[in-house]
């Protein structure tokens, strides 16, 4: 494996993504956590870019960093969150947890290492947005439409729930 620019970029982005994930768990203030999450999201978008999936990358930033985190920040800042986290479980639990994580990591490592992805000749760098569009509206049109209906239902449901809350107050 030679040191290329791509490699360096990937290492950097992956590092930030993992760091963001760890900080998300380790930080104590909720707002800090969300910001750590933003860093993870943005680095993942960068990795998408490296994979020539520019559309997915841009949408990742647009939706996750742009919209979702802001809504989360909103919720956190505007609501009362004085309650501090409870003290974590005892030592045995911690050890068990660590073992579990190690086991999972090992399994994933083995799984990926042994996985043999058949290399297909693809034209990655060309008009992938168009390709996504064509795929969505021809081959996957039914799942796509179903998904939009599902989201719509979720939206309506959320509004109804919020309204009920209001009246109850």
């Amino acid at each position: 494996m030679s040191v290329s620019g791509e490699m360096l970029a990937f290492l950097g982005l992956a590092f930030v993504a993992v760091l963001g994930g760890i900080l998300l768990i380790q930080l104590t203030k909720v707002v800090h956590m969300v910001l750590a999450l933003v860093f993870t999201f943005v680095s993942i978008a960068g990795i998408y870019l490296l994979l020539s999936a520019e559309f997915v990358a841009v949408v990742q930033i647009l939706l996750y960093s742009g919209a979702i985190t802001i809504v989360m920040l909103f919720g956190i800042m505007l609501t009362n969150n004085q309650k501090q986290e409870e003290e974590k479980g005892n030592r045995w639990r911690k050890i068990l947890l660590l073992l579990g994580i190690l086991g999972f990591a090992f399994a994933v490592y083995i799984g990926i290492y042994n996985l043999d992805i058949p290399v297909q000749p693809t034209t990655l760098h060309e008009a992938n947005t168009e390709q996504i569009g064509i795929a969505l509206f021809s081959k996957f049109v039914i799942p796509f439409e179903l998904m939009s209906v599902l989201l719509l239902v979720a939206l309506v449901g959320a509004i109804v729930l919020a309204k009920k809350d209001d009246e109850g107050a």
Partner: protein
Amino acid sequence: MMQELLQSAPSWTKVGIFFGLAVLFLFVVLGFVTFAILSERKIMGFMQMRIGPNQVGGSWGLLQTVADVLKLLLKEDTIPKKADRPLYILAPVLAFAPAFMVLATLPFTNQFQFADIGVGLLYYIAISGITTIGVVTAGWASNNKYSLMGGMRAAAQMISYEVPLVMSLVGVVLLAGSLNLREIVAAQEDIWFIFLQPVGFIVFFIAAIAELNRVPFDLPEAESELVAGFHVEYSGFRWAFFMLAEYVYMFAMAALTTLLFLGGWHSLPFLDFIPGAVSFALKFSVVIYVLIWIRVSFPRLRADQLMEFAWKVLLPIALANIFLTALLKELF
């Protein structure tokens, strides 16, 4: 030249060239910001029957902004005691960095562009959304009620106006058949999109002003209500970063308007002898002027009216515009 550079194999010299160009461009943008602020103050001055800056740098006050920036650099950098220190420091960077990142995909002329990515338009909108996080963070980290409200307003406003902004552009995308900014400009060879998409243009322009937080949508920093909104507590250089981000966005938004609706570097039919760069600069200046003009003549909207306007007026119009465009495109 840029195209060749972009598509050639990577090497350290190329990195050096790119870095050099980026630094050069940074100074171009900073130069623009300097004189955009000056021209804004001057034009506002003329419209309000006063003189404007006329002391530093000759009777035109040419060095006024330079002096202002110097002052800001020399000012004491205060951090409130109760502020969330790391976030307080991070926020200006978060707000400012995307402002420069969006410039990367904008093709200023046929040749001059840093990154020609397929989803250039979407890239702009996505990256500019990150600034919102910076603003919200600044509002939160300052630990000041006014700045928190300013940050909240900024976030609500930016999210709301991003929707009609994107929707109004779908018409353009439909007509051009691409998200790539170069191709969108190329599609305007014969006729500018402002004539094909007048409704889309109006919605876009209004939403753009709102995205820029300029009058009449300057609620996040509404001076008479929230004192200065999210940057109440900021001073000196950190404050300058917010201002810089604001004006770089003004630069970027004016450039984007020119590219999407005013034909980019294409000149008018009989004026083909004008070089692309000059043509672009002229149109760009007109957009900037209109932005300043609007700032001088309007009062501010109220927060709830602003939201209502985005969701109840702009969005339906934008959707109708998409529908109509698609219909017309199918028919003809």
